[in-house]
């Protein structure tokens, strides 16, 4: 049998056709090596294990965050034999694998984004309290979604909730979460607040919320954001970038709206307090009025007494000048004709005098005058 003889280009074309048919894309997991970024755009690296190494090529837009040699990743890509540069896999997505790699990548990304100021306290905006419309980014099948809705409705009514159902873990989660945030931000009638939430899980499950893609989407949202990832220890980067974070989906509902039962009880207390204040004020006003009525009566009585005393005093003073009182004491009033006689100088012997005594009236002739 004759061997099939192919030209080099022919061979490359046939091999690529075969690869395209058999492996349109593959996911390869391994340790990063020789990682480098060229011209701030192109990414080159190898994935290796104990025995082999494969070359990869991609762009910075596919990176989940800063990467370093030694991290374990799973890369989805298209294998091909390049005409000039040999065999490589063209990257479609890169996902971190294993808690160690995830944590390390998260720390690197956190440092990078913190340096840009994405987590600054001064960027945090207050959330409307309570909101009228909530944009919710969650998985509709998850317990987190149901917990959030249940607690929200129990506490407060009349809130409109608009859900965009997304994957909250896995390869496509970061893209879907980013697109959901973008979609809410482009609505003509935007919600008052965006809630991004999921339940707890492993580092692998939660890594979408520590990707650069999702973190930047949360940080750049024009709508205030509340991120609630239910887990105990580590805080995701999306939570750091959010305006507010909650520890669980239920806690998110508690932070967003007041509890109407507590408010009602508080209102009842305030009503009772208001009743008490009103009653006390009226009672005080009444007492004050009674006191002033008494004051009026007392004032008038005292004045009348004062006027009376004054009158009696003056009457006594007046009576002291009463001529009849002097007559009663033995004095007499003497007239010579119509002239009232005080001294004796114009009295002569033989004059007729008119003498008024207390009980009698005398007409006398003067016999002798002694001065």
């Amino acid at each position, binding site marked *: 049998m004759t061997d099939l003889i192919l030209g080099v280009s022919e061979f490359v074309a046939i091999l690529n056709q075969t690869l395209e048919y058999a492996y349109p894309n593959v996911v390869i997991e391994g340790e990063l090596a020789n990682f480098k970024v060229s011209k701030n755009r192109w990414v080159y690296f190898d994935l290796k294990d104990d025995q082999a190494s494969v070359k990869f090529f991609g762009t910075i837009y596919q990176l989940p965050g800063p990467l370093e040699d030694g991290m374990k990743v799973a890369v989805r890509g298209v294998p091909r034999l390049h005409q000039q540069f040999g065999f490589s896999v063209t990257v479609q997505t890169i996902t971190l694998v294993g808690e160690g790699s995830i944590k390390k990548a998260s720390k690197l990304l956190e440092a990078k984004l913190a340096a840009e100021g994405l987590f600054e306290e001064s960027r945090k905006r207050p959330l409307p309290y309570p909101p009228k419309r909530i944009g919710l980014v969650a998985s509709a099948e998850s317990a987190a979604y149901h917990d959030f809705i249940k607690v929200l409705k129990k506490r407060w009514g009349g809130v409109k909730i608009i859900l965009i159902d997304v994957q909250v873990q896995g390869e496509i989660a970061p893209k879907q979460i980013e697109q959901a945030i973008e979609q809410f931000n482009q609505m003509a009638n935007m919600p008052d607040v965006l809630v991004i939430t999921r339940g707890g899980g492993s580092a692998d499950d939660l890594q979408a919320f520590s990707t650069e893609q999702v973190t930047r989407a949360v940080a750049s949202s024009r709508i205030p954001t509340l991120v609630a990832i239910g887990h105990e220890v580590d805080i995701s980067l999306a939570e750091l970038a959010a305006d507010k974070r909650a520890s669980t989906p239920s806690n998110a509902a508690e932070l967003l709206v007041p509890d109407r039962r507590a408010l009602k009880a508080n209102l009842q207390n305030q*009503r009772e307090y208001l009743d008490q204040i009103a009653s006390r004020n*009226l009672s005080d*006003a009444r007492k004050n009025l009674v006191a*002033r009525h008494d004051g*009026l009566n007392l*004032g*008038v009585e005292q*004045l009348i007494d004062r*006027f009376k005393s004054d009158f009696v005093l003056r009457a006594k003073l007046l009576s002291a000048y009463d001529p009849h009182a002097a007559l009663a004491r033995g004095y007499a009033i003497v007239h010579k004709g119509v002239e009232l006689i005080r001294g004796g100088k114009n009295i002569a012997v033989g004059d007729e005098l008119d003498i008024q005594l207390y009980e009698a009236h005398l007409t006398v002739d003067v016999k002798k005058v002694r001065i």
Partner: protein
Amino acid sequence: MKTAKSYQELSAELDGILAKLQSPEVQVDELSELYKDGLKIITQLEDHLKQTENIIEKIKLSAAKEIE
């Protein structure tokens, strides 16, 4: 049409009358008029208080119905 005087205005007038009664310059001729005016104001103040109590009662009843 004259607007009715407020509780504060009437209260101030009563205080004025009481102050006059305590002053040494008050004359006998003024006394009966002052006393008459004082009693009239006190009656008006009592009417004000009564009206306020009634209004508050009505508000309490209507607020209680709304909450139910």
